[in-house]
Structure formats: structure tokens, C-alpha cells
């Protein structure tokens, strides 16, 4: 296997690079499909797209090891694809089908697969942070060498659960990487208006743990930082990462974008993580343009296949309504 080593870039196999790239593409294309479905009224409810933020989701999870845990957010499609969950049940879940990860009962905001270490997207802003912390405790109690990656947003960082969890993890040295995807807004609320600090990684001081702020649109920076953090958390307890990024789409289905300017959006679009990774791969001749196009075609085809699978999957049966409230 060819290896690419350059200053500041991680030591990644071609397979790994391809995997990371295609997962970003999957995420983007998955969500474009979802947006289309919504615009056509084919999906009900709401959804939160991470278009523009793929690098932080995919790059971070790429740095995990087999058996590590991950807690996602309401903006969780990238997290789910990053964790390697199958596209078909994921799309099926969006369409509310019985073949979905949650048998059609969760939808976009609750996609999860505990059996694969995915602790769930979460409809409660900040709600997943204590859960991830508890997963860290569980891992630690069993003496396993496993880490937990906990995603949350810049809005969530002002919830009490953030504070309580980081404090708890810090006193117990839990192996949890807390990764804040700072996409600059919590719905309409600019991070600059919601907090009194520019650099959210300062919040690590409160817990005596490392805190770093990184370019969340550079998948390699994200990857390397999480790699480092993972080593740290296994030995010394939690680590806070603030990944600066941006969401290109509205907050959810309905959003007039009144709280930000077109200019701002366009500026960030220049930092789109997907073309950025593509340029990197192409310039360094890791893949040829043709190979990259082929990867992209495969991504498109796989998403289409997932859509087809989802479309033709059966709806839940009426009994599903009352099943699985309780175990046993």
C-alpha cells in the first residue's frame, strides 16, 4: 500500500483515505437526497443537515478504533455514516420504514445502533453528553481500552449537562473525547451572542483538562487531533476539542437564514471540506481525477441503492406501535 507522509498530515493508508473521502461524499449525497425528499413532502417531521460539516464528523470517527463508542447529535447523519453504519437502514429510517435502524420509530433525530457502538442521535440539545459520559464510565469499570467520542454543538455547550458531564469525567478520568462542532450557530443564535468567549476551548480550564480549537473543515486536522486525544483519554481522562466549522444549509427544514448573511455563507463555502480533501488527494497524486470521479460515482450509486432499498421496504406493522416500550 502506498503511503503518503507529509508534515502535519497523518500517516494514512490509501484505503483509509478512500474510506474517509467516500464517507464524506456519502454524507453529502445522503443529505442532498433527504433535502430533496423534504422539499417533495416525501418525509415528514424535520431534519438537520450537516452539509459543510462533514470533515469534523468523518475525520473524528476515522480516528477511533474498533469497539469505541460514539454519541451523535440531532445533526447526526455524518456521525452515523462515519461510524460505519449501513446506508440502507439509515435511509429506511428516514423514510420511517420497518427496515430502518429504529424500525421507523426514531427518524433522523434518533438514529442509533447500540450494537455497533452508536449511542444515538439525540433530540435534546446537550442530551447525549451525560450518556456518553456514562459509556465512558462503563468502559472504565470493565477496564477496557476503549474510548468514547461525544459530539455536541456550540449551542449545547451552554447546557448544564455539558458542565456536569465534563466535570464528572474529569474527576473520574473517563476516556471520553468531547468534540464540539462549532458551526457558529445554535439555530439562529450566533455563538458570539450565546457565549462571552471567542474560543470555546477555554472551557477546558474549568475541568483541568486539555482543550484545543481546530480547523474543523480540514479532515486531517480533525483526524490527527482526535487520534492524539484518544491516546490521552485512555490514560489521563477527558479531552475537549472545538472544531470550527459551518453549516451551509438552514438549521432545519424551515429556516429563512435571517440571522446571517449570504456573504458569510459564501465565504465558508470556499472552505468546503469535500473539495478540499479532493484537492489534497489529487494534488498529491494519491488518486487520479478519474479515480476520484469513480469514487464519487460509487457514492452516488450506493446512495441510490439505499434510497431504492428504503423505498421498497415495508412500513412498520401496527403492533410496532406498542412493541419495545419495555425490555423483557
Amino acid at each position, binding site marked *: 500500500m502506498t503511503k503518503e507522509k507529509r508534515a502535519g498530515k497523518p500517516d494514512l493508508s490509501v484505503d483509509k483515505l478512500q474510506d474517509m473521502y467516500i464517507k464524506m461524499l456519502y454524507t453529502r449525497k445522503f443529505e442532498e437526497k433527504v433535502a430533496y425528499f423534504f422539499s417533495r413532502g416525501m418525509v415528514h417531521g424535520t431534519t438537520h443537515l450537516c452539509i459543510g460539516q462533514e470533515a469534523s464528523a468523518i475525520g473524528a470517527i476515522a480516528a477511533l478504533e474498533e469497539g469505541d463508542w460514539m454519541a451523535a447529535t440531532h445533526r447526526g447523519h455524518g456521525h452515523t455514516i462515519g461510524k460505519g453504519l449501513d446506508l440502507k437502514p439509515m435511509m429506511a429510517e428516514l423514510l420511517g420504514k420497518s427496515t430502518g435502524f429504529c424500525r421507523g420509530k426514531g427518524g433522523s433525530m434518533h438514529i442509533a445502533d447500540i450494537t455497533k457502538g452508536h449511542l444515538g442521535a439525540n*433530540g*435534546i440539545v446537550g442530551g447525549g453528553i451525560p450518556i456518553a459520559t456514562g459509556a465512558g464510565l462503563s468502559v472504565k469499570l470493565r477496564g477496557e481500552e476503549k474510548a468514547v467520542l461525544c459530539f455536541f454543538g456550540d*449551542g449545547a455547550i451552554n447546557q448544564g449537562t455539558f458542565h456536569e458531564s465534563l466535570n464528572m469525567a474529569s474527576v473520574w478520568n473517563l476516556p471520553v473525547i468531547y468534540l464540539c462542532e462549532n458551526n457558529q450557530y445554535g439555530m439562529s*443564535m450566533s455563538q458570539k451572542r450565546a457565549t462571552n468567549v471567542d474560543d470555546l476551548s477555554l472551557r477546558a480550564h474549568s475541568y483541568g483538562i486539555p482543550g484545543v480549537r481546530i480547523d474543523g473543515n480540514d479532515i486531517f486536522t480533525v483526524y490527527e487531533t482526535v487520534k492524539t486525544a484518544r491516546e490521552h483519554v485512555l490514560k489521563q481522562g477527558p479531552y475537549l476539542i472545538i472544531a470550527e466549522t459551518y453549516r451551509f444549509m438552514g438549521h432545519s427544514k424551515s429556516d429563512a437564514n435571517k440571522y446571517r448573511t449570504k456573504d458569510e455563507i459564501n465565504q465558508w463555502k470556499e472552505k468546503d471540506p469535500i473539495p478540499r480533501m479532493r484537492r489534497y488527494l489529487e494534488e498529491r497524486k494519491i488518486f487520479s481525477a478519474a479515480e476520484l470521479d469513480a469514487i464519487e460515482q460509487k457514492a452516488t450509486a450506493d446512495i441510490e441503492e439505499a434510497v431504492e432499498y428504503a423505498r421498497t421496504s415495508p412500513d412498520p406493522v401496527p403492533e410496532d406501535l406498542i412493541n419495545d416500550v419495555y425490555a423483557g
Partner: protein
Amino acid sequence: MSEREITYADAIREAMSEEMRRDPSVFFMGEDIGVYGGAFGVSVGMIEEFGPERVRDTPISEAAIIGAAAGAAATGTRPIAEIQFSDFIGIGIDQLGNQAAKMRYMFGGHATVPMVVRAPAGSGTGAAAQHSQSQEAWYCHIPGLKVVTPSTPYDAKGLLKAAIRDDNPVVFLEQKLLYRKKGPVPEGEYTIPLSKGDIKREGKDLTIVTWGRMVPMVLDVAEKLAAERNYSIEVVDPRTLMPLDAQLIIDSVIKTGRAMVVHEAVKTGGYAGEIIATICDSEAFFYLDAPVRRLAGLDVPIPYNPELERNAVPTPETIEKNILDLLD
């Protein structure tokens, strides 16, 4: 009454705006209520009229929002705090139930806490388990709170104005699925006392007590059965659940001899229990010709799939079926 028709959401905005014009100590705080206009567009335009001090976007911190409202209320202002979905009141329920509601009593009467917590409740929007609940029974079980849930634009305006003027903490539960529904609302000033229920339809065969978005649904079924079978169903909407206009319900049951309670909230522990206990421990008991029927949401979290979601709560079909059971 004027012939003007406006939506339930408009009625709520009008109530807030009128009260804010009338009384400078009234202000409004919540997530994304400013330029965004609120998650359901209820406050569109208000920040333009009242400015960002009195229409105050908050960080995502429900406990602090409710607690700060309590503190502000106890010290001379009249806050309206919007919680974006009523499901999130739980995050701040300690501040609501242990602080705001109890302050007056436990301080021996010298505290006055005039605040309103407004929040949309209910299912039917495809938002799944954490964005679709009806938790009025929780709030009614907290002495010191008042709990209001209007079913028409007219009631919404009059009750909200009364809630804002009330010297107690009031939980004002709005109905997502009614926000866009229109109804007659006079332009002028009026309030509806927070202690009076309303007979939404007179009848003599059966009393149905119901509230929120179940009211129009029950009324439709009552009309249908009046037309099809000549049934005469009385529909009582308490409007304010705490304090409850028990006498109105008791009198109605004495008149009809049959009672049914319909609510969207999950059945077990739901407020139907309160109403049935009120009926069955009153003189109305002696007039009952049949068991008191309870029709409520199933004991399940609200599922995502639209068909499952629809059937998780009472539907026109189940309402009709239960009426027929009782009356045939």
C-alpha cells in the same frame, strides 16, 4: 364578537404584544424568538417592535431560562419565557416546580412570581419521541402553578393575556397542530379568567371532557354522530387545567349521566385520571349510567413513522368507536 379571523399563533403574538405595550414590566425571553421569530413563527416581528432587550434571545439553557424568569418575576418584572418545545420544560422543571411554584408559600406569602412559561405541546408533526409530548399532568401536580391549554385562537388570546396578568407562575401549553388554524378573535381587549372552563358544544347524552387539539377533533366527531345518529354530545373544554373548573364538569355529567375524558397525553398517570376521580368522588357519581371512559394516548413514546404516530393518540375513529361503545 368581531368577525375577524386570525390564527392561533397570531392570537398568541397579539396577546403578548398587547400586554407588552400595556405594561413595560412584561418582557419575553427564549431561544430563537428574535430575528428567527421562534421555532413556530409565533413571535415574528416582535423584536422589531420591542427590541432585543424585551424580546430576548437566550442561550440554549432551559434551566437558566426558567430560573431566571422566576428570579426576574420575584423582583418586579413579568417575564414570558418560551421553551421551544414543551418536552424541554423537564430540563428546567426543578426551577419551575421547586422554585417558582413554591416561593410564595415557603416564604410565607411575601413573594409574588408573575411569570408565564409558554411552550408548544403535542404530536403530529413527525418530530418523534422527544419533541411531541403532552405533559400537562406533570405541571398540574405542582401546587403553586397554574396550567392553561387553549384550543381556539379566541381562547388563546384571552387566556394568555390573563396568564400574563396573573400573579402566579403559569404554564401555558400551546398546540403545535393548532398554530395555523384560524378562528374569530376580536381586535379589542378581553381576557378569559384562568378558572373557567367552556362548554364548546351542548348536549344531553354524554359529556366529553377534552382539551387542546383534541377539542376540534372531538367536536367533529360529535357533529358527525349528531348528524348520523342524532346523538347529543356535550363537549367540555376546561381550558385551564389547574385550577380546574370542576363544577362545570360535574354539572355536565349530572345532566348527561355519562362521561368520557379524551386527551392526547399518554394514558397512565394522565390528567384524565384527575378528572375521573373528581367526577367519581362527587355527587355526579350517583347520576352515572355507565363507567367513565378514558381515551388517551397509548403508553408509548411518540414514534416517527406517520401512521404509527397518528395512532399513538386518539383519532376520530377511536373517539367515535368509544362513543358508540358508551352510547349504543
